[in-house]
C-alpha cells in the first residue's frame, strides 16, 4: 500500500470541504433557530410583561442587529465558544457546576457525547457483525431458499419504522419479559434495546448492499479470468471479488452510521438515553438557541468525521482514487 502526496492532497481537500460545509450548515441552523419562536417568552411564560420580555431578549443578545449576532456566532464558531445556555438548571451538569463556565453550551453538549458515541458505536458494530456475514452468505448461493429468506428479512429491516420498532421492543422485552430495563443508562443491559432498535435499518441495508455488490463483482470479466487461471473459488471470492465489493459496502456502512447518528435524536428520547440526541430535543423544546447550536454542531461534526473516514477508507480500497 503506497500512500503518496496525492493521497494527502486528497484528504486535505476533503478536510477543507468539511470545514466549509460545517460553516454553511451551522449558518442555516443559526437563521432557522431565529424563526422558531421567542426564547425569552418561553423562559418567562405567557404572563410576562412586554418590558420583561424585551429586557431578557436584550440580555440574550437577540435585540442586536442580525449582522452583529451572526458575526458573533461565526466568531464563536471559530473559537469554540457557542454561547451560554438560556435556561439555567437545565441539566445535572449545569446544576452541579457553580462557575460561569458551566453555563457554556459546548461543554454541556460535550458531556453528552460519550453516551451517544457508545450507543451509535454499539449499534454500528452490531449491525456490521450481523449484516456482513448474512449478505456474503446470501451472495454465495443466489436465489436459494436461505438467500430469499435473508432478502425478505433485510427488506423488512429497511422498511420498519424504527421508533415503532423501539416501542415494540420495550413492550415485549422490557415490559412483558422484563429482560432489559425500559430506559436509562449505565449498564450493558441498558444499551441492548436502543441499539437493537437503531440497528434494524443498518442491518437491512448493509445486508442488501453486501449481497448485491459481491454478486455484481462475481459477474465481472476479471473474475472469469481469475477462474480461468485456476485460482480456487474461495480465493477468487475472498481476495478478488471482496476487495472490489468493499467499496460500496464501506459507503453503505458510512451512510448508515450517519443515519444512526441522526436517528439517536428519537431513540435517545424514547429510551431516556442521556446523549446528544435527547439533549437536542430538550433544548429545542425550550428554544434554548445556543444549546441547540452546540448540539447540532456536535452532530454535524460527527457526520463530517464519518464522511472523512469513509473517504480515507475509499482511498485505501480503490487505488484509482489515490492518483491525481
Amino acid at each position: 500500500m503506497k500512500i503518496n502526496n496525492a493521497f494527502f492532497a486528497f484528504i486535505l481537500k476533503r478536510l477543507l470541504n468539511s470545514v466549509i460545509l460545517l460553516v454553511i450548515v451551522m449558518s442555516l441552523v443559526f437563521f432557522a433557530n431565529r424563526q422558531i419562536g421567542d426564547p425569552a417568552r418561553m423562559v418567562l411564560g405567557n404572563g410576562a410583561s412586554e418590558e420583561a420580555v424585551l429586557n431578557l431578549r436584550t440580555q440574550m443578545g437577540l435585540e442586536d442587529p442580525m449582522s452583529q449576532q451572526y458575526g458573533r456566532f461565526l466568531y464563536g464558531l471559530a473559537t469554540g465558544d457557542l454561547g451560554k445556555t438560556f435556561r439555567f438548571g437545565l441539566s445535572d451538569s449545569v446544576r452541579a457546576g457553580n462557575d460561569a463556565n458551566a453555563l457554556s453550551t459546548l461543554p454541556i453538549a460535550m458531556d453528552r457525547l460519550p453516551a451517544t458515541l457508545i450507543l451509535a458505536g454499539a449499534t454500528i458494530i452490531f449491525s456490521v457483525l450481523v449484516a456482513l456475514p448474512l449478505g456474503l452468505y446470501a451472495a454465495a448461493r443466489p436465489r436459494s431458499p436461505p438467500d430469499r429468506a435473508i432478502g425478505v428479512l433485510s427488506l423488512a429491516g429497511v422498511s420498519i419504522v424504527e421508533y415503532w420498532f423501539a416501542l415494540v421492543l420495550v413492550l415485549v422485552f422490557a415490559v412483558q419479559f422484563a429482560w432489559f430495563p425500559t430506559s436509562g443508562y449505565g449498564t450493558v443491559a441498558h444499551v441492548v434495546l436502543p441499539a437493537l432498535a437503531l440497528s434494524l435499518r443498518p442491518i437491512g441495508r448493509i445486508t442488501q448492499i453486501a449481497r448485491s455488490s459481491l454478486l455484481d463483482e462475481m459477474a465481472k470479466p476479471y473474475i472469469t479470468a481469475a477462474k480461468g487461471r485456476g485460482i480456487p473459488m474461495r480465493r477468487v471470492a475472498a481476495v478478488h471479488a471482496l476487495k472490489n465489493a468493499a467499496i460500496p459496502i464501506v459507503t453503505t456502512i458510512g451512510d448508515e452510521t450517519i443515519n444512526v447518528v441522526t436517528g439517536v435524536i428519537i431513540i435517545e428520547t424514547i429510551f431516556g438515553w442521556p446523549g446528544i440526541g435527547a439533549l437536542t430535543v430538550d433544548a429545542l423544546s425550550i428554544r434554548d438557541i445556543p444549546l441547540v447550536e452546540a448540539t447540532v454542531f456536535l452532530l454535524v461534526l460527527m457526520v463530517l468525521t464519518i464522511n472523512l473516514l469513509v473517504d480515507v477508507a475509499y482511498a485505501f480500497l480503490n487505488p484509482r482514487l489515490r492518483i491525481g
Partner: protein
Amino acid sequence: MAVVDVKADMQSDQPVLDVRDLKVTFQTPRGHVHAVNGVSFHVEKGEALGILGESGSGKSVSVGAIMGLLESPPARIEGQVNYRDTELISAPASVTRSIHGDRIAMIYQDAITSLNPSLTIGNQIGELFKVHRPNMGRREIQAKSIELLEAVGIQPARERVNSYPHEFSGGMNQRIMIALGIALSPEILIADEPTTALDVTVQAQIMRLLGDLRGQIDMALILITHDIGLVAENTDRLMVMYGGGPVETGPTDAIIERPAHPYTIGLLNSIPHDDMKGKKLIAISGSPPKLNEMPKGCVFAPRCAMAKDMCRKEIPVMTRIAPDHSSACHFAQEVVDG
C-alpha cells in the same frame, strides 16, 4: 539436431489438446439454446490453430467449455476435452484447476476489465505462482514476476510491478494479460480476440510479441477471432465456425487459397483488397441464425447464394476434399472447383 527432431516427432503422435464432439446447450426460460453443436478439433504441440467466426458462431463458448468457465447450470456440456491423458469435462475441479492457468492458459479480449482493478499487477502475477507453485518463495516470485514483465515489454519492470491496471494503456494491459498467460510456460495459450480492443499498430505489436514468446517456450496457440487477416498471418491451421459448429477445417493457407465452403468465401470476399478499388465490397447478406431457432438442414443455407433444396432439408456432414481439408457443404467439391 537430429535427436531433437525425433523427440519432437514422438511427442506429436498425440495432440496436446483433443476436443471431440463438444456440445454446449444453455437452458433458458425460453427453451434450450444450442450454442455449440458438435465441435471436434485437435491442437498439436507448438502449432497455431485459428478459430474463425462471427459473434454467435460458438467460438467463445467452445473455449469457455475448455477452460471450465461456463456455469453449469445453465450450461450443459457434452463431449470430450482431452488435455493429454486428462478429460477435462468430467474431471473434478481440483484436477482441472491444476491444468487451467498452468498447462492451458487463456488471454481475453478486453484486458483492462479482465484484470482486477484493486490489485497490483505484481499481486496478480504473483498469485499464479502462489497457487500453482506453492513451493516458490516470495523473493523468487517477485523476481519471476519482474522477469515476465520484462519479457512482455513492460519497462521499467521493477517499478511497474507495483502499479495497478488503470495506470497502463490498453496495449500495455494486454501485454500484462499475456504475461499472466505465459507465466507458467503453458503448453497451450488460448487467445480470445486478443487484439480486437486495440489500435491497429498496437495489434501488430501484440501479435509479434505472441509469436516471439511462442518461439521461446514452444507453446501452442489457439487464436479465436472474427478477423480473417489475423488468422491468415498467425496460424498454421484453421477452423471456420458458423452457427455453433465447424463449417470448414484445414491448413490456413489451403483454406484461404481454395475455400471449400460458401461461408468462407463470403468472409474472404468481405475483406477489402487493393485490386478492388472503386468496386463495392461484398458483404454476406442476412445475419447469423438465432441459436434457439436454428434452420433445418444447413445452418448457412438461408444466407447462401448457392443454396439448393437439398441444403434446406439435409444437414451437411464434414467431407474431406483434400487429405487435411474438410468442408461441411453438400457441394464442397463444386465450391472448390469454382
